[in-house]
């Protein structure tokens, strides 16, 4: 039943989930699979030399994207791993600073779900509230970042609601109190300017596959001098912070994606902001009983997220998909349809945190656009959405036209 949509060109509005590898990136990676395949740790043989050089160059490129030194970049295999390394690694290496760890209420699962493990290691975990726009509540942070707090984790930008956090402000507050700050920059680094010399962060996660780099490559920026304990032990790679034979082609890809992102960011941001505004404005005009989520202006360019009363998210997502449009839903049902049972079906913690009532937050949809998207795609989406919403509301026992 799904196959007829194959004939249409798809409209990919789900760049927050993952992005295709840029052809230039793939081209850069290509020689490192079967020709320059050597182990970069085999420095004494010819085969190790080029891969080693390629790693060094990629490190420089990622460093340049963030305005960091090359030796402040640790390569990992995923943003999840970077977040695990940063939080567990900083916590274990800096116990002298305290025992308390704070997460914002809207961190990604790869931060949130570490809580139990951290508690089992004897740490205390508490959560900082966000306001209805998803911005960290600075008063709550001031209150909770009390003596004994060693580490705070606040993401650069939330990919479900698009909000960009005031990391600079947060970092300055924490610095004055001697508290470490990790920021999950997956989906932000490579998309919006991130300057670690300007932002008072101690570590920052970078994810390649969210800005046209390959899956399987990510990085952790670690500020020079900040102690970190590796969480995966083994050989002496990545300056001792991350063991395991380096995934050279993927790292080369991350480097090249970083170079391209740094060069093309200004233009991309401009175009995406315009496209995003067009989509936002159109949706606002076309759909009633619609609520945008996240901050209206302090948000990722090209990111538009909302929920619609009397419309369930998964059904909306499925109909959009059938109409050729790829998006993502924070709907409980949509979020984990492959889970082994229904215990995983909880309303998104992000939406609940920004105050969307759990019983009606099932209509949430996020569109995240990329540089290859066009005005025509936006307009097609705008022409399609009202019809789908109408159809689903028609089916809803909760919807009464007369009530509206």
């Amino acid at each position: 039943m799904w196959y007829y949509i194959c004939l249409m060109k798809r409209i990919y509005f789900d760049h927050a989930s993952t992005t295709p590898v840029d052809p230039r990136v793939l081209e850069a990676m290509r020689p490192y699979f079967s020709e320059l395949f050597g182990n970069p740790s085999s420095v004494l043989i010819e085969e190790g030399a080029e891969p080693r050089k390629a790693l060094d160059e990629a490190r420089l490129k990622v460093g340049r994207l963030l305005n960091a030194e090359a030796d402040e970049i640790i390569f990992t295999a995923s943003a999840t791993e970077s977040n695990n390394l940063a939080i567990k690694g900083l916590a274990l290496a800096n116990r002298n600073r305290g025992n308390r760890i704070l997460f914002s209420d809207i961190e990604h699962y790869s931060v949130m779900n570490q809580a139990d493990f951290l508690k089992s290691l004897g740490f205390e975990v508490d959560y900082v509230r966000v306001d209805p726009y998803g911005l960290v509540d600075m008063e709550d942070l001031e209150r909770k970042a009390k003596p004994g707090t060693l580490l705070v984790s606040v993401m650069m930008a939330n990919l479900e609601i698009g909000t960009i956090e005031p990391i600079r402000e947060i970092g300055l507050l924490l610095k004055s109190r001697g508290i470490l700050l990790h920021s999950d920059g997956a989906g932000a680094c490579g998309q919006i300017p991130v300057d670690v010399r300007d932002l008072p962060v101690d570590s920052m996660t970078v994810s390649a596959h969210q800005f046209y780099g390959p899956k399987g490559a990510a990085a952790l920026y670690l500020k020079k001098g900040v102690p970190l304990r590796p969480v995966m032990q083994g050989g002496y790679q990545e300056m001792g912070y991350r063991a395991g034979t380096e995934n050279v082609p993927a790292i080369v890809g991350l480097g090249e994606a970083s170079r391209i992102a740094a060069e093309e960011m200004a233009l991309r941001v401009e175009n995406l902001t315009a496209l995003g505004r067009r989509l936002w404005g159109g949706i606002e005009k076309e759909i009633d009983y619609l609520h945008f989520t996240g901050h209206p202006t302090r948000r990722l360019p090209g990111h538009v997220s909302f929920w619609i009363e009397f419309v369930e998210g998964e059904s909306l997502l499925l109909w959009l998909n059938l109409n050729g449009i790829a998006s993502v839903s924070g709907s409980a049902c949509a979020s984990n349809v492959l889970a082994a049972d229904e215990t995983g079906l909880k309303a998104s913690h992000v939406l609940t945190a920004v105050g969307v009532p759990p019983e009606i937050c099932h209509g949430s949809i996020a569109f995240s656009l990329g540089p290859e998207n066009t005005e025509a795609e936006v307009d097609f989406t705008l022409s399609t959405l009202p019809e789908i919403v109408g159809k689903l509301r028609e089916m809803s026992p909760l919807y009464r036209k007369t009530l509206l």
Partner: protein
Amino acid sequence: MAQGPYSEKVMDHFMHPRNMGEIEDPSGVGEVGNPACGDVMRLYLKIENDTIIDAKFKTFGCGAAIASSSMTTELIKGKSIDEALAISNEAVAEALGGLPPAKQHCSVLAEEALQAALEDYKKKQQEGK
């Protein structure tokens, strides 16, 4: 062409729901909801001579919930009350070509909606007597 998590039957009923709508002056109505998932299902029955001669539904919910509702109405139309009561959630799921484990509860919801509607019918019958 690769499949999503849903069978073709589920997608067929999701895209072309059978018997969607309301019945004016129904013999019985059942509404159930699963607050964890946010689904709400309302089932309308028209019953004559102990036989379900019409069934309609309205559902706020995911693909599986809509398909389960649609399939349930198809399965019960023309059946006697006892026959309808014997239709389990597994039968609904099976008729749909299976549901993902995390979505089994949607077929349960459909079964519950059916039971609630028949309950309502019986209550009305007793009140009517």
